């Protein structure tokens, strides 16, 4: 709180703020002079006792004036000093001839002091003091109202002092008000200065923080050496270029910032596709964060495939300020993907060719009509085994190829309005022989009206076959599998419920993993490789649907294929 200190400094020099002893200095000086005159050989005489008492009072007042600021007494007691001075003046004047005393002028000293105090009552006190001084000689009998001039003096002198007191009081008040106003202004100025200092500090701190944030951002960006981070303005001109960009693209920061446009980095034909050589539309197309695969050109003209994330940048007012491109070199990933695809294709081809021979020759072995050489029942049975196992291998190859395609993101579906009711019935028909052989009851529940949803019929059929064949496979003799079709307002659900061996709760989340098999499946020696659910889930996901699983070991499992979209059939 610096304000009070400054206030004190400003008021220094005004009478009101003087110390009591300083104010009393006038009276001390006056009385010292009077005493000197009295003891000098000038020849003015007076009663010794009252003069000594008067001097003693003035001195006592001086002691009080010195002591007062050091005591706990209120500063208001200061008023006692001029009051005592009044008494001293009255005594001195009376003792030195009353009306004719040469020391009457001393009256002015306490009058100024008291009248300069704030408030009208001080005028009255001052006038009362003057009256007391003027009246004392009459009261003690050394003077009497002998002539009219005596009476006039008795009244006139206090009246003049009263006017003087009023003037002094007014001047003091005006001065006091002015002082207050000045103090107010000083306070306001101090507050202003303080708040200015505060905002300067705040601005400085914010600048520091902002610089710190920028330094942090720059060091983070530069620490990312595997990705090129490129910032541009709205016209596509580069204004951010991190170390990753330097190493991936070959341009130094100095060569890139302010000199390159984003279209210089994108392969020319990629930029041409946007019909905008400046790259404005190239960057303007990104409204939210967008992922794109692009070909990037290095400084030396060589090219590489880049996976690019494009985001809009905003300034502090929230206005669009440009774009941020985060590019990853996909050369290795692309090569790896190519090798994977090649491998999958090779495996698929190399397995299918011998399988084609096996199945083809098995087909040739079977007698076509009664003219062919007949085979024994046992020979035909063996042939069936060869055929069935060759087809199992073929199914496996197909599943492997399919999951590889899903993994590579090359799995597409062709949606057409399809009767889910018909697909459910077909799946039940496919599973019926196996269910019958395993003595598993197979029930189908469908709504009366045909349920038609826009899906890929081949893929959904495949998913239903997988779910149903699993349910039959994992349900022991005497159990039941129920296939229920439900058509809701927003979703279509196919529920496959079995009374099978169940799946432990902690394995449910892993069911759709490639080659994962539930522990119960292995324990019960149920055949399979663990691809069926991976495929089924991929098919559901491709349709924006999902697979829900609920299971209790020893009680059974319920798989639900949920497809978005209600039945279009009336």
């Amino acid at each position, binding site marked *: 709180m610096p304000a009070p200190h400054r206030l004190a400094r400003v008021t220094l020099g005004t009478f009101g703020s003087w110390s009591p002893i300083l104010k009393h200095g006038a009276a001390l000086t006056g009385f010292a002079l009077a005493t000197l005159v009295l003891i000098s050989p000038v020849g003015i005489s007076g009663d010794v006792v009252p003069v000594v008492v008067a001097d003693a009072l003035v001195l006592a007042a001086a002691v009080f004036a010195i002591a007062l600021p050091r005591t706990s007494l209120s500063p208001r007691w200061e008023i006692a000093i001029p009051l005592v001075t009044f008494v001293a003046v009255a005594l001195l004047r009376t003792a030195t001839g009353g009306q004719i005393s040469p020391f009457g002028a001393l009256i002015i000293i306490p009058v100024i002091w008291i009248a300069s105090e704030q408030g009208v009552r001080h005028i009255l006190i001052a006038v009362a003091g003057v009256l007391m001084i003027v009246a004392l000689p009459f009261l003690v009998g050394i003077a009497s109202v002998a002539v009219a001039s005596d009476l006039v003096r008795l009244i006139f002198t206090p009246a003049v002092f009263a006017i003087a007191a009023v003037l002094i009081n007014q001047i003091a008040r005006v001065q006091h008000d002015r002082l207050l106003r000045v103090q107010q202004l000083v306070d306001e100025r101090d507050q202003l200065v303080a708040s200015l200092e505060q905002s300067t500090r705040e601005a400085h701190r914010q600048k520091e923080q902002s610089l710190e944030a920028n330094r942090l951002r720059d060091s983070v960006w530069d620490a990312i050496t595997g990705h090129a981070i490129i910032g541009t303005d709205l016209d596509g001109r580069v204004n951010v270029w991190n170390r990753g960009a330097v190493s991936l693209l070959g341009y130094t920061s100095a060569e890139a910032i302010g000199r390159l446009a984003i279209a210089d980095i994108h392969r020319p034909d990629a930029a041409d596709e946007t019909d905008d050589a400046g790259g404005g539309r190239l960057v303007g197309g990104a409204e939210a964060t967008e992922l794109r695969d692009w070909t990037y050109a290095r400084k030396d003209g060589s090219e590489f495939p880049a996976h690019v994330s494009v985001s809009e940048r905003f300034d502090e007012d929230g206005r669009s300020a440009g774009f941020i491109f985060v590019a990853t070199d996909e050369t290795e990933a692309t090569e790896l993907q190519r090798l994977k695809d090649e491998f999958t294709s090779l495996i*698929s081809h190399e397995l299918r*060719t*011998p399988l*084609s*021979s096996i199945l083809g020759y098995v087909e040739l072995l079977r007698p076509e009509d009664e003219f062919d050489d007949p085979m024994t029942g046992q020979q035909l049975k063996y042939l069936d085994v060869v055929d069935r196992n060759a087809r199992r291998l073929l199914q496996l190859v*197909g599943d492997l*190829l399919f999951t590889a395609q899903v993994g590579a993101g090359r799995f*597409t579906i062709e949606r057409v309005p399809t009767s889910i009711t018909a697909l459910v019935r077909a799946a039940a028909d496919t599973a019926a022989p196996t269910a019958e052989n395993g003595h598993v009851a197979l029930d189908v529940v469908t709504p009366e009206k045909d349920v038609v949803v826009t899906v890929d019929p081949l893929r959904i059929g495949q998913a239903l076959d997988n779910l149903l064949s699993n349910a039959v496979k994992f349900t022991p003799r005497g159990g039941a599998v129920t296939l229920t079709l439900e058509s809701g307002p927003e979703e279509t659900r196919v529920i496959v419920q079995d009374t099978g061996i169940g799946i432990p709760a902690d394995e449910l989340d892993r069911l759709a993993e490639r080659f994962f098999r539930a522990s119960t499946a292995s324990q019960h020696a149920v055949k399979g490789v663990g691809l069926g659910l991976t495929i089924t889930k991929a098919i559901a996901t491709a349709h924006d649907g999902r697979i829900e699983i609920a299971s209790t070991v020893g009680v059974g499992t319920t798989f639900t294929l949920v497809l978005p979209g209600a039945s279009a059939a009336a």
Partner: protein
Amino acid sequence: MRVLIADDDADLRDLVTIAVEKAGSEVAAAVASGTEAWAALQAMHVDLAVLDISMPGMTGLEVLQKVRDDGGLRELTVLVITADGAPDIAEQVHAAGADGLITKPFPVRELVRFIRDVAERL
């Protein structure tokens, strides 16, 4: 009807040969590479070419391309056989100008029926 068979797998080549014979047609040549197939096509007259895609030297699709670009052979009926399971294989084969596509493994009956149909149209 004279049929050219090209497949690098000997067993499958034989299987196709059997299918051709079952269909009542004559095997003009059965070769194991695309290069041999192209040489055979230029050396002799055939009515139908059954080409496997994946072959050493020249692939079945490359042979097909040459056939379609050749003035004398442009109208030759070509059946493509493949073990390729790529999702867009049918589009590729159709775009290359094949008259038919059979994916391995295939029922022999189906191949026999295709060959008979071609023979009937001739």
